[in-house]
């Protein structure tokens, strides 16, 4: 339907059907209300957990799925996977309070079409929704820069990420070795690799950088 009084002064022939997944009710309600005030957007469903996605009517059509990355039961990459298997045609747009380069990288790699932060102005949110709906990607320049930074770096192996968690908890090489049943020497090699890959000065800086970039997250420590 055409509207002459569209707030954003743009005309759309089609309504974009949006579904939102966020664990916090206030965000869910506020965001859905805000998006609903846009004529071209229709919020068709809200979910407080990615798990709920599997319970919906498969016939429901969703164009854009807004997903919070950090949720207590199923979050992040897993949620993206769940969503894309449930709504194979939907485009996934991440809306997160965090903007660490690792999370952006992982989300995009997992198949998200875009990434915005929760504090983005609504114009950016709606722009992102429209962009991903039209088949493009959306990352604002700041997030795009973070993603390219991340792509330049050597990726940490899963083992190194495991070890990084323990480094961040303040464990010594010996304790790390004991935890994974590897020698202290091997643990030290791993830690040295981590420090090199993150281009850090020492293990403390490596842990801080890893947290900053979202390679590891505090609640998992």
């Amino acid at each position, binding site marked *: 339907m055409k509207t002459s009084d569209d707030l954003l002064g743009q005309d759309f022939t089609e309504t974009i059907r949006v579904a939102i997944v966020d664990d*916090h009710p*206030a*965000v869910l309600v*506020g965001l859905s*209300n*805000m998006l609903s*005030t846009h004529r071209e957007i229709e919020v068709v469903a809200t979910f407080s957990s990615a798990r709920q996605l599997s319970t919906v009517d498969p016939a429901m059509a969703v164009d854009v799925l807004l997903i919070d990355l950090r949720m207590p039961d199923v979050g992040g990459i897993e949620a993206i996977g769940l969503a894309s298997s449930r709504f194979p045609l939907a485009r996934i747009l991440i809306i997160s309070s965090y903007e660490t380069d690792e999370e952006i990288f992982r989300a995009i790699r997992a198949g998200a079409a875009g990434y915005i932060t929760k*504090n983005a102005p609504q114009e950016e949110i709606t722009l992102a929704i429209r962009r991903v709906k039209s088949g493009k990607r959306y990352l604002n320049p700041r997030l795009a820069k973070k993603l390219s930074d991340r792509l330049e770096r050597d990726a940490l192996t899963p083992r190194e990420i495991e070890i990084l968690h323990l480094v961040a908890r*303040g464990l010594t090489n010996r304790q790390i070795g004991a935890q994974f049943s590897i020698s202290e020497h091997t643990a030290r090699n791993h830690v040295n690799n981590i420090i090199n890959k993150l281009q850090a000065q020492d293990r403390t800086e490596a842990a801080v950088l890893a947290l900053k970039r979202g390679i590891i997250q505090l609640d998992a420590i």
Partner: protein
Amino acid sequence: MIRARLLFIVVLCVSSRSAAASDLAANAERVEPIGQLRSSVLLPAVRHTVRGVISRVGSPLFIQDRTGGAEVELRVPNPSLRIGDEVRVSGTLVMMRYSARLEMAQLEVLAPGVPEPAVSLTASMAASGNYDRVYVETEGVLRATRRTAESLWLLLDGVREPFVAELPLNEMAVNASMFALQSRLRVRGICIMDDRRSGEATPFALKTVTMEDVTVVSPPPFWNRTHVLELVGVLLLAGISLMAFYVRMERWRFGLILDERTRMAHDLHDTLAQSFTGVAYQLQAIRNAIRSGADNVEKQVALASAMVADSQEDARRSIAMLRPADLDTGNVLENLRQQGEALVHGAEVRFTLESSGDVERVAPELGYILLRIGHEAITNALRHARASHIAIALRVVEDLVILEVKDDGCGISQGSLRVRGFGMRAMHARAHSYGGTLEVHSNPGEGTMIRASIPLRARRTWRSRLFSILGEEMMQK
């Protein structure tokens, strides 16, 4: 007439000679106390006779009686003499500084005797001079040894007087290493006041005969230089390790504080920050509605104010978690229920309470620990597990109190159990601080059961005590 004069002369001569002879004889016969030889007013050339007991054979010979000792130089050496023989000695008197000496002496054994025991003296008594040439016994601490051509000298420290002991080398296979420095020795020997052969400035020397004359009273005391140095080293090491331990403890404490801060930050992020985000979106929605002249603005504003009220509730909850209420620890169960309901605040959560056994036996201190564990368990159940039913049970079985908090929430995976958060660690720490244990049984989707089993009377190791002191101090902040 001439004949008579001659006779007179002869008689005179005879009488004078016999008088001289009888005079000599009388003098030789007079036995003097040895101690009085030095004060004798008689001419030195006159022979003096003393009676005494041999205290040392050889050359010179030493004799002594109750008044003192003297040296004797025999005219004819007599190898059959024994220590202890009672003898009469007459000889030419030679004065010495503290005693006397009889030279060209003749000796007569009066009786074979038993050796007299040494006079036991302190070093300062021996130094007085009254015991010169007497067989004495005294004690001192060995400070040094020195070897000369024919003797081994021990330099000893009496109470106030240093002295030396001479051990003849010819007779015995002695060497300095037989005596440990700083050991306390008892030395028997002839006290010689004016012996300077040792080269030491000591008031007297003890001339010993055999090894038996030197006995060890006590070995070197512990407080010698080496041991003191070792002890200082050990203390230093202990100090350093204590410091290291303290630093570690501080780091651990600091880690706990950081954990707590992290948890608070998360808590605030999960609740307040999200609420604000939601409210911000809602306000944006209202603005959009006003601009577009929509008619449901009032409804949207009402929703916004409800969201703000909800945020206030979040804030209240966060604060409640930061500062657990000052608790009456008497009724643990009732307290836990109240706390739980305060945390829930209106949400649809049911609490079931159950107690068995003599729960009155729970001491206030233990009650406090149970409350903190229970509080943490309930908070977890509400915050993370989204439970709708929480069962709290308190049982006293024999000498054990068991607190169980069971919920029907989403559970915790074994993986995240291992990577315990602050709350879990704090619960374990509290249970351990009283000698108890904490079990967590949980599987995703099956709820969580936390069971603390704590003895009614604390079984505390020093470690758990330390843990509880440091831990509680921090946790109460």
